[in-house]
């Protein structure tokens, strides 16, 4: 019978040495930023009931979730998203805490991707949720935390800001039904200009149609707002543009101007997000490394209506970037190998303790003979071997290759 004992499932991988180092570096840097902003860490279970992630409200399709059943036949999923469990836990267990609640997490999420596309089914995300606060200051807090978090890891990213309400307001001015609206949204998300044009051509003229036509192209710097203002009619859209301009300028005044852009065509998960939405990109990674926004309806689904804003960072993407920039390297070989001679184990351990107390990385030899210890030290690239007996004998080795 064929067994799969020697391989890991598609979309998963082992992480070795410097890869672990890179992941931990990113996790630590981000956790440091989050906790210095007053966010407290939570861990949610890896397994949750399917109902928590109901595709209708989560926007996560059924096909993407890893599912199993519990002993009573109830449908369980392997956590496909970090925010919904946090909404569940806030709504059910943190009702009595003073608001807003500031939470952060670092945990893997699991999505089943189509075969052989090279995407990871398991990816670590870390992020924050600021729950129980609406309005400009809360949005700004989330945005500033996002920029500072990315800055703590890597230079050279772009954060773009949009607003879920902008598309909704524009779509509201068009003579379209639900399914046409969703088509328009999809075409804008894919920046599929030809298909969008074809659909809008059937709706006749008018300023809303013209504005919608330009929407996927409305990304970039401040000029975007100017163009959008010239296209838009209606109190709601104008209000949103003023709001985005305020956020954009405030971030600029904080010295983040170089990293921040606008994209009015950010329409992902438009039923999930209710206000400001943002995502970040960096060079040499083909997808967003950070996604976030305001989701004021979500907590209500768990019975505790509250405004909320948050974002998630793709830890693996940042870690890979750190590695390719050679900002982290494999942990080096130990500096010292201590070999306790027969009958001198106690002295050997004492020597190790004192070396470690001085901050040296050292290994205790597990070999029976001096020769084996030396062969190992050479192969491992250890420079110094201490033989601890009646006296301590020090042997220095040429630098060899590391394993």
């Amino acid at each position: 019978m064929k067994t799969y004992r020697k391989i890991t499932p598609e979309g998963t991988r082992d992480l070795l040495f410097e890869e672990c180092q890179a992941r931990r570096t990113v996790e630590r840097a981000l956790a440091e930023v989050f906790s210095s902003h007053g966010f407290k860490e939570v861990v949610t279970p890896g397994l949750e009931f399917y109902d928590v992630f109901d595709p209708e409200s989560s926007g996560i399709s059924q096909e993407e979730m890893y599912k199993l059943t519990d002993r009573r036949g109830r449908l369980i999923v392997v956590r496909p998203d970090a925010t919904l469990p946090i909404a569940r836990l806030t709504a059910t267990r943190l009702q009595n805490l003073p608001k807003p609640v500031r939470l952060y997490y670092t945990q893997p999420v699991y999505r089943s991707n189509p075969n052989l596309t090279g995407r990871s089914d398991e990816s670590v995300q870390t992020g924050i949720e600021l729950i129980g606060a609406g309005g400009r200051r809360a949005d700004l807090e989330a945005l500033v935390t996002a920029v500072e978090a990315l800055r703590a890891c890597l230079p050279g990213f772009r954060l773009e800001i949009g607003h879920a309400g902008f598309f909704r307001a524009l779509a509201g001015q068009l003579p379209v039904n639900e399914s046409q609206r969703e088509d328009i949204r999809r075409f804008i998300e894919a920046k599929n200009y030809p298909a969008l044009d074809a659909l809008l051509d059937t709706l006749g003229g008018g300023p809303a149609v013209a504005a919608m036509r330009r929407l996927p192209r409305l990304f970039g710097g401040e000029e975007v707002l100017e163009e959008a203002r010239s296209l838009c009619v209606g109190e709601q859209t104008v209000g949103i543009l003023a709001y985005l301009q305020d956020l954009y300028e405030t971030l600029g005044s904080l010295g983040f101007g170089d990293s921040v852009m606008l994209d009015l065509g950010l329409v992902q998960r438009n039923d999930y997000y209710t206000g400001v939405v943002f995502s970040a990109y960096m060079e040499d990674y083909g997808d967003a490394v950070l996604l976030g926004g305001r989701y004021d309806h979500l907590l209500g689904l768990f019975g505790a209506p509250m405004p909320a804003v948050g974002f998630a960072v793709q830890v693996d993407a940042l870690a890979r970037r750190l590695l390719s920039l050679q900002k982290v390297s494999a942990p080096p070989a130990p500096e010292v190998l201590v070999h306790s001679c027969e009958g001198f184990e106690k002295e050997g351990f004492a020597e190790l303790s004192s070396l470690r107390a001085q901050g040296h990385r050292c290994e205790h030899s597990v070999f029976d003979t001096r020769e084996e210890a030396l062969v190992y030290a050479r192969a491992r690239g250890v420079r110094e071997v201490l033989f601890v007996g009646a006296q301590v004998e020090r042997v220095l080795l040429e630098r060899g290759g590391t394993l």
Partner: protein
Amino acid sequence: MKPLRIALTKGRLEKDTVALLEKIGYDCSAIREKGRRLILPVGNHEFEAVLAKAADVVTYVEHGVCDLGVVGKDTILENGNSFYEILDLGFGRCRFALAGPKGKPFYGGYSIRTIASKYPNVARAFFEGKGMDVQVIKIEGSVELAPLLGLADAIVDLVETGATLRENGLEVIETVCPISARLIANTASLKLRKREIEALAARMEQAKGDGI
């Protein structure tokens, strides 16, 4: 900064794209005389062209190892899209169609239809849209054979002139959708290199309007 990298679908779309690029003033001699090389400089090294099979163009662009790609809408429909589809290049025109034996009604009756296709996802999505439950069989080669041999009731395939269908006693039952070549862009690339990519797309759009 690195040159923009554009993946071209080998074959006819490649030739049409080269013609379009030359028309807007880029020197494509490296592509015309490529030999066995797979990554080729375009113009004065303004960008690099990569030659690949259609589905691979989508893969390379999705992963961001190529910033742009030229690929048929048929490939996009079959392979999904987590990239931006920014321009209809206007060449490589044909259509997806449902076709079956001439004179034999396809709709009607209650038995489940069997559909043969090289594009199972397109076929499935088309019938899902109609609320019809069909069985789809993937065929790699000449799909027209399947209904002739009695394996399938109809096929979903690319149709250009319809000559092959006619010669085999088949006819188009319904058009699924029109197809043409598209310029696609990686999500992050478009955000990070907006000016370059938009400028190129605008020039291509203008040139295509004038006819190749």
